[in-house]
Each structure stands twice: as structure tokens, then as C-alpha cells.
């Protein structure tokens, strides 16, 4: 067993002991949010860093999953655990459907459509009162439990959330580093070339959008069972902005970079005690600065280094 793998397993074991360390509810909530953003930003990384699609609709799938899970638990009286696969499935289906319709368009249009779709979903959540209970949302959701043990506090909830996060990350990691991942990188770099070599670009893109949306949907479902309420604010633009920062700074296409950035950008604003508005201002400044200086993130810098090494070697 390689040293790297050993280190990762040790780290995971350590994470599982966090709830037992007596941290405050606040700290554990931050830990939960860190898990959530790990899944969301890794999903966006898959879609953007590998699939080459700047999709701003991630938050809509997360929200669709949240509402599906919440409504099924409240209206259909299902066990919360049972609603999660459906939340993911519905989110994935909607994602594939919307993507299929908009992938025929140019990339400009795709980004805009994804953004507008996200806004539209939030409008629907707010205004289709008959279904979603409107702006007040759906309070009193049941919490996740196994037998009699209820995952009510953030500390307790951390366990199922962490487990789901680790499984999702493993799934995404495997996808990115498999041949599918390599094909995606090819599509991202030069789609016509890939097509001329027999690669079904559309199918690959729909796959990543579906997977990413599905995982986000399940995460959304889990999250609202801990909050015990689902309302339109679950699809706030704030989530999109945060995800973007994490992927851009970490470097699109870099698994560890984005994972690291998601941890940093979850913890840092809390540590600095920034108000939500200032946090967003900071994110905006970082985004602008990144675009002016290192648009390819840290991953791009490494690629440039490799290129220069080769040039000198072959000169």
C-alpha cells in the first residue's frame, strides 16, 4: 500500500473522529458546509474543468434535489433516506434535459442559459406556491435517523454527510482519472478534433452534467434534512459564486486543487469573521484578479511549467 494511500486513509479516519472532539455546534456546522461545498465544487470541476462547460446551473440542481427530498418526506410521508435517490435522479434528469436542449447552442448562450435557468428555478420555488409553499418554504422536515439514533446536531449529522462526501469524491476522482476523463479533456481542448476521431462529445457532456447534477441533488436533499427546512434561499446566487471561486482558484481540471480551494474558501471567511456581503466582495475581487493574472488557475501554471521544461529539453 503506497504511502500516499496510507496518508489519505489516515486523514479520513481522523475526519471521522471530528464529532467526538467536543467542538462547538458552530464549528461542526462549518465542517458540514465544507463537505457540501466539496461535493458541489468537485461536481462543477467535472463539468467545467473536464467537460469544458461553464455551467452556472449547479445550484439549481442542488435546489431541485433539496425540494424533491423535502416534498417527498413531507407530502408523501416517505422515509428521508428513501427520498435521496429520487432527489438525485430527478436532479440528474432535469440536468440532462436542459443540457441537451442548450448544448446545440454556442458556449456564450450555454453559460447564459444555465445562469437564467438557475434564476428561473429560484423564481419557481418562490412563486409556485401550490407546489413549493412559496417564499416561506417547507419547515418541519424530518431529520435523518438510523433506528432510534437521530442525526440532529451538526456533530452527529457530520457522519452521514462526510460519508456521502467521501463516496462522491471517490466516484468523481475515478471518473476524472479514467479514460472517460481523458476523453473529456480532449473534448474540452478541441471538440471538433475529438469528434473527427469518433468521440461522441454530446454523450460525454451529458454524462458529466447528469452525474454532477445527481450528486448535487442528493447533497441538497441531505442538507435540508439537517436544516429541517427547505425554502427558495437554498438556490441563492451565493452558492454559485462560492463554487466558482473554488473551481477557478483551485484550477479547473485539478482534483486536489479544487478540493483544497473549497476547504480554504469555506473556512477562511468564517475565520475572518466576514459578513456575507464582504465575503462576496472578497470573492469578486479574487475572481477579477485571477482572470487578469492567472486565468487558468494553479493548474494552468503547472501546465506552462511542463511545457517550458520540454522546450528546453528538446532545444
Amino acid at each position, binding site marked *: 500500500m503506497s504511502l500516499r494511500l496510507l496518508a489519505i486513509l489516515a486523514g479520513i479516519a481522523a475526519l471521522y473522529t471530528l464529532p467526538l472532539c467536543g467542538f462547538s455546534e458552530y464549528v461542526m456546522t462549518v465542517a458540514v458546509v465544507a463537505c457540501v461545498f466539496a461535493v458541489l465544487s468537485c461536481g462543477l470541476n467535472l463539468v467545467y474543468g473536464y467537460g469544458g462547460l461553464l455551467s452556472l446551473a449547479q445550484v439549481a440542481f442542488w435546489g431541485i434535489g433539496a425540494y424533491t427530498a423535502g416534498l417527498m418526506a413531507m407530502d408523501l410521508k416517505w422515509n428521508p433516506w428513501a427520498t435521496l435517490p429520487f432527489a438525485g435522479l430527478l436532479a440528474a434528469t432535469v440536468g440532462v434535459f436542459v443540457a441537451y436542449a442548450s448544448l446545440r447552442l454556442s458556449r456564450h448562450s450555454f*453559460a447564459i*442559459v444555465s445562469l*437564467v435557468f438557475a434564476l428561473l428555478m429560484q423564481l419557481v420555488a418562490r412563486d409556485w406556491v401550490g407546489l413549493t409553499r412559496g417564499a416561506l418554504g417547507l419547515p418541519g422536515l424530518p431529520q435523518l435517523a438510523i433506528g432510534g439514533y437521530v442525526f440532529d446536531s451538526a456533530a452527529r449529522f457530520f457522519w452521514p454527510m462526510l460519508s456521502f462526501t467521501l463516496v462522491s469524491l471517490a466516484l468523481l476522482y475515478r471518473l476524472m482519472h479514467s479514460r472517460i476523463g481523458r476523453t473529456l479533456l480532449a473534448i474540452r481542448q478541441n471538440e471538433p478534433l475529438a469528434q473527427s476521431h469518433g468521440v461522441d462529445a454530446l454523450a460525454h457532456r451529458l454524462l458529466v452534467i447528469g452525474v454532477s447534477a445527481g450528486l448535487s441533488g442528493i447533497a441538497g436533499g441531505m442538507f435540508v434534512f439537517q436544516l429541517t427546512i427547505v425554502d427558495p434561499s437554498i438556490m441563492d446566487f451565493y452558492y454559485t459564486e462560492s463554487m466558482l471561486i473554488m473551481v477557478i482558484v483551485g484550477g479547473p481540471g485539478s482534483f486536489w486543487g479544487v478540493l483544497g480551494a473549497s476547504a480554504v474558501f469555506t473556512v477562511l471567511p468564517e475565520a475572518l469573521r466576514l459578513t456575507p456581503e*464582504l465575503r462576496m466582495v472578497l*470573492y469578486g475581487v479574487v475572481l477579477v484578479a*485571477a482572470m487578469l493574472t492567472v486565468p487558468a488557475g494553479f493548474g494552468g501554471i503547472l501546465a506552462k511549467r511542463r511545457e517550458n521544461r520540454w522546450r528546453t529539453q528538446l532545444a
Partner: protein
Amino acid sequence: MNTTYLLQLVINGLVIGAFYALLAMGLSLIFGVLEIVNFAHGEFYMLGAMAAFFLLSHVQLGYWPMVAAVTVMGAGVGWLFHRLLLGGMAGRNFERSLLLTLGLGMVLQNGALYLFTATPKLARTEYGMQAVVIADMRVTLMRLFALAWAALAFVLLYLVLYRTRIGQAMRAVAENREAALVVGIRPERVARLAVVIGIALCALSGAALAPIYTVTPTMGLIFAFKAFAIVVIGGFGSIGGAAIAALALGVVEALLGGYLSLILADGVAFVAMILVLLFRPLGLFGTGVRV
């Protein structure tokens, strides 16, 4: 059918539609000339409205000088915007410019939220709520004057685009960038003017609409999304198409809101956009030359 009510709605719709048009045309112009989708467009509109509020309440400026001043300031901000941020971005990797303007939008909106709070502000001019009565309809002076400003902006924009050389250059670049460069048009100058005009239009819209609607830091977001929807419906790069789509949208929204529900009114722009994208991806008036 109460015709007075109908006409009232139509007038209101035209007023807001006119400003949708100015915003959308500015967006379209910037896209056409620089190939950049300006995700901060709505925030410049918001800043215009904020500036209007402050000039009216703290500096006690009159309505007419206020609108003129805000527009000029908008032009200046546009100049800075291009000079400092958009310099080398034209025509390049579009995601970069998208994220840059998105980030800028975040900074402006949240900065405004932090500094001015989310409390809606009422911009009051010396005309207050005075109105004229035309055939049983009550049209506030603010709406009337706003329409006048919009009409002036349309005329000036038309003159610049169709009667000046640099305007011609802008249209040329929007239609066929490579050819325009070959012919010797200096892209940076043209780009700068396009941005200046676009942002000035945003500022003007903000200033003219501030006394009519409330002013909040988040007002830019929804307005901008409507503008995006309009540009898509009208067709990317088609400035005239954007204008027509905008006026139509303004009226349709007003009618839906007045007769059915506000919810439908808000959603119609997006639904229309999605329909256009599905069935006529180039937009209703798009020429298919550039997307």
C-alpha cells in the same frame, strides 16, 4: 374591457420596455464589438440609480441636471472599466471575460449592499408625484420625462451608429471582426467607445428610473437578466432586434402583470428566452453571422 386601464398598462410597459431596450442595446453593442458578455451590466444600472438617489437627496440637485450628470459619470466609469479591466480581453477566451465581469458584478452588488444596506430607497425629485392627465389616464411626469430621455438616447444612438464614422466602424466590427481589422479599423478605440456608450446607457436608465421605482442594491440583477433574455430573443449582435424585443417584453409584462399575475410577468422573459433558444437559436432577428 376597460380601455383606460389597458392603455395605462401599455404606457407603463413602454416606459420600462424603453429602458430594457437601452440596457439590452448596450449589452448587445458590447458583445458585438468586443465579444464579451458583460455580466456586470445590471450593476452599472444599479450604480446609476444609487448615484441618482444621492444626488437628489444629499446634493439636492434638480432632476434634469441629475440625469445628465449621472449619464456623464456613467460614461466616465465605462471608460475606466474598459481601460482597467477589459483592455486585452476582446475576442479572446470568452469564459475569462465572463468570469471577470461576473466577479466585478459581485463586488459592485455586495459592496453596495454592505455600504448602503438592502433597505429600499426612494429617490424624490422636485416634481414629486405630479402627473398629467391624458384622456382619462394619469401619467406621472417622471414617467413622461423618462420616456423623453429614452427617446433622446435612441436618437443619439442611432445617429452615432449610422451617421458617424466610428459608429460605422462599430457596426463593421460587430458584423465581421476579422474583416474589420484587415480594413484597418483600430479595435481598441472602437471597443472603448462601445463600452463607454453601453455603460452610459446603463447609468442613464438607472437615473431615469430611480424616481419611478425604488432603489436597492439588488435591483440590477433582475434587470440584467431581463436584458440577457432580450438579447437572446432579439438575436446576439442585432441591436435593432434587441430594441424591438425589449419594447415588446415591457408591454407584455405590464399586461400580464396587470391582468393576470406578477409572477407570470416576471417569468415570461425567461420562458420566451428558452423557447427562442429551442426553436430559433439565432434569435428572432439574428443574422447568424456571429454568436
